[in-house]
């Protein structure tokens, strides 16, 4: 991934003049002492309102059936799986930042990994809804888990959907563990810093009595490193498996060997875009420019660009294979994307995912906060469109023209989608309010004071 490239005068990864206590106080203050800003209530309110919309949509869905969505034959999957893949993809950046960059010893990760991980968890939570909701009989969703039952039936482990069940639940669990382990010392800090009895008890219990003992730190570091080591292949496997949902199928536009790498890259791409989308307002809002510095933004810009290029390559290969394979069906699939009824979607996707990020070649753009934010927004939309193109456009016209059909989302598709965004926001705001959004103890290690003198080392 993009390490600190030789740029003249790299901006520092932590603002000047900070000491252990300033870091500690500044970050924990957000949770403990600072008065909750009005903006927080507004944001949380919006998120919560959307969450209610989600509940409404789901209730309607359960009682009336997925006929309320736009899905049909041939297009059996629509917003449901699009959103699923979109959210899962977004999740990936968190793990990447916290695990992979950790292994690569990228110190700049420190100030963003905490809320990136939180983002992962919440994104996965949103994603996790869809495999259940998209069922015709959601109340039987538990049949996807292997447990001894009176029917003597088992799940069908050859199905990519089963792989999903395992991959996503594992991913969710491991991410949660990783996140929690990372939180323990900071929870201890909060415990020790908070004056209010209730909070001390709560944080006290959550921190499990962490007291920063060197022996503990010793094992802690090992465990944390091991988790990072495990998460790295895991995060790659998850989107690989998600891509199997399609590449295992026979449908032109689905059945492609390039999918795994191209999906993983896409996921990280989407993820970083989302991290930017969240980080930029956050640092502004809580004045954390010292911790999330322009250097961070610059690096994230680079990662976005890099992964964006991989994704673009993916698109190219799809087109190339369609032509090179000489297969009528593949060829038509591509032709259909270019000029078919959904062509607008496809070209919009190209603009968002291929053209827009090219701006990141210019350090000016990477340097400008609004510039980055706009590009990130483009990518968020683009990645959603990518899934739309892959799922809907491919399904709408497969082998037999007799069965071709069209798809478009209904108001309920949209409600569900926007609803999950509500869920995401709600969780995100709660997190910001009650937990340190930046890893305090890791920030401390970045200070020069943390350096042990040569002769002692």
């Amino acid at each position, binding site marked *: 991934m993009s390490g600190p490239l030789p740029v003249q005068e790299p901006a520092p990864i932590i603002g000047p003049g900070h000491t252990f206590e300033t870091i500690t106080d500044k970050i924990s203050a957000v949770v403990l002492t600072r008065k909750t800003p009005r903006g927080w209530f507004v944001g949380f309110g919006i998120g919560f309102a959307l969450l209610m919309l989600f509940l409404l949509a789901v209730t309607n869905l359960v009682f009336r059936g997925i006929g309320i969505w736009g899905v049909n034959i041939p297009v059996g999957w629509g917003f449901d799986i699009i959103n699923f893949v979109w959210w899962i993809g977004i999740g990936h950046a968190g793990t990447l930042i916290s695990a992979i960059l950790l292994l690569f010893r990228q110190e700049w990760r420190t100030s963003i990994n905490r809320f990136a991980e939180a983002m992962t968890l919440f994104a996965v939570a949103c994603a996790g809804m869809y495999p259940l909701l998209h069922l015709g009989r959601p109340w039987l969703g538990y049949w996807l888990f292997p447990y*001894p*039952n*009176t*029917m*003597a*039936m088992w799940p069908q482990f050859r199905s990519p959907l089963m792989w999903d069940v395992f991959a996503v639940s594992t991913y969710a669990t491991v991410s949660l563990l990783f996140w929690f382990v990372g939180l323990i010392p900071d929870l201890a800090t909060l*415990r*020790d810093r908070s004056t209010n009895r209730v909070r*001390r*008890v709560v944080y*006290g*219990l959550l921190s*499990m*009595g962490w007291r920063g003992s060197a022996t503990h730190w010793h094992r802690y570091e090992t465990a944390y490193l091991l988790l990072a080591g495990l998460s790295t292949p895991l995060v790659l496997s998850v989107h690989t498996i998600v891509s199997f949902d399609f590449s295992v199928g026979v449908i032109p536009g689905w059945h492609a060997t390039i999918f795994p790498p191209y999906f993983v890259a896409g996921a990280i791409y989407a993820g970083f875009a989302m991290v930017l989308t969240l980080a930029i307002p956050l640092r502004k809002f809580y004045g954390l420019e010292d911790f999330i510095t322009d250097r961070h933004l610059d690096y994230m810009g680079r990662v976005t660009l890099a992964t964006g290029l991989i994704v673009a390559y993916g698109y190219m290969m799809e087109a190339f294979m369609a032509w090179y394979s000489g297969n009528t069906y593949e060829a038509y699939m591509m032709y259909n994307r270019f000029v078919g009824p959904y062509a607008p979607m496809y070209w919009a996707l190209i603009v968002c995912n291929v053209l827009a990020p090219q701006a990141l070649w210019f350090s000016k753009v990477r340097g400008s906060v609004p510039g980055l934010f706009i590009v990130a927004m483009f990518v968020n939309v683009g990645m959603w469109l990518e899934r739309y193109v892959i799922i809907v456009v491919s399904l709408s016209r497969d082998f037999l023209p007799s069965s071709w059909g069209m798809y478009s989302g209904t108001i309920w598709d949209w409600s569900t989608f926007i609803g999950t965004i509500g869920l995401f926001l709600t969780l995100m705001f709660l997190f910001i309010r009650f937990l340190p959004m930046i890893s305090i103890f890791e920030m401390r290690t970045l200070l020069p004071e943390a350096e042990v003198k040569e002769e002692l080392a």
Partner: protein
Amino acid sequence: MPQIFHPSTNTVARVTILGALVLLAGAGWAITAISRSGYVTGAKVARRQPVPFSHKHHAGQLGIDCRYCHTAVERVATAGIPPTKTCINCHSQIWVDSPTLEPVRSSFKTDRSIEWIKVHDLPDFVYFNHSIHVNKGVGCATCHGRVDQMNLVWQEASLQMEWCLNCHRNPEQYVRPRDQVFNMEYEPPADQVALGQRLVHEYRIADKGQLSDCYTCHR
């Protein structure tokens, strides 16, 4: 800084974690148990009927053959619930004015059917065929139990899919000679499996694969 917690908290914490695990396991076990219990399956629960008809008396003591009433059992899917006429055949002669038989008589007079309570009730998506089982040497008692010893009939087996499969997977453990099918007293011989394997071959009972195909029972 003052302690937040009392020393006992440490123990409490550990116990809580353990307890949670134990509780979880317990819940799992309970669900498995309940889903197989008579409460859910309705097994072993004698059903009250409009007429307290005693199989024990008729099939057991009087030794009336099953097929006298369940006439269709060898021919079609359903064994057949006897029409009122069947009861009247005898009860126009005996117990002609027993009050318990009033519903029968009135049914016959008014030509309105007696509404029996269904004891063995399979879900609508299961297609069980009596005739083929009877013809392949599955005894009545194998599934219905010793009906000849029941006053009010109850459902002997769970009738859950795993129960059906158990026999569809190992028919040799249950089949008996055709002439013994309706014999309630029949006791499987010591060498049941040997006999079973012979009969399975003799009666050309389909292989386990075919017997456990979904479409064998579901359509």
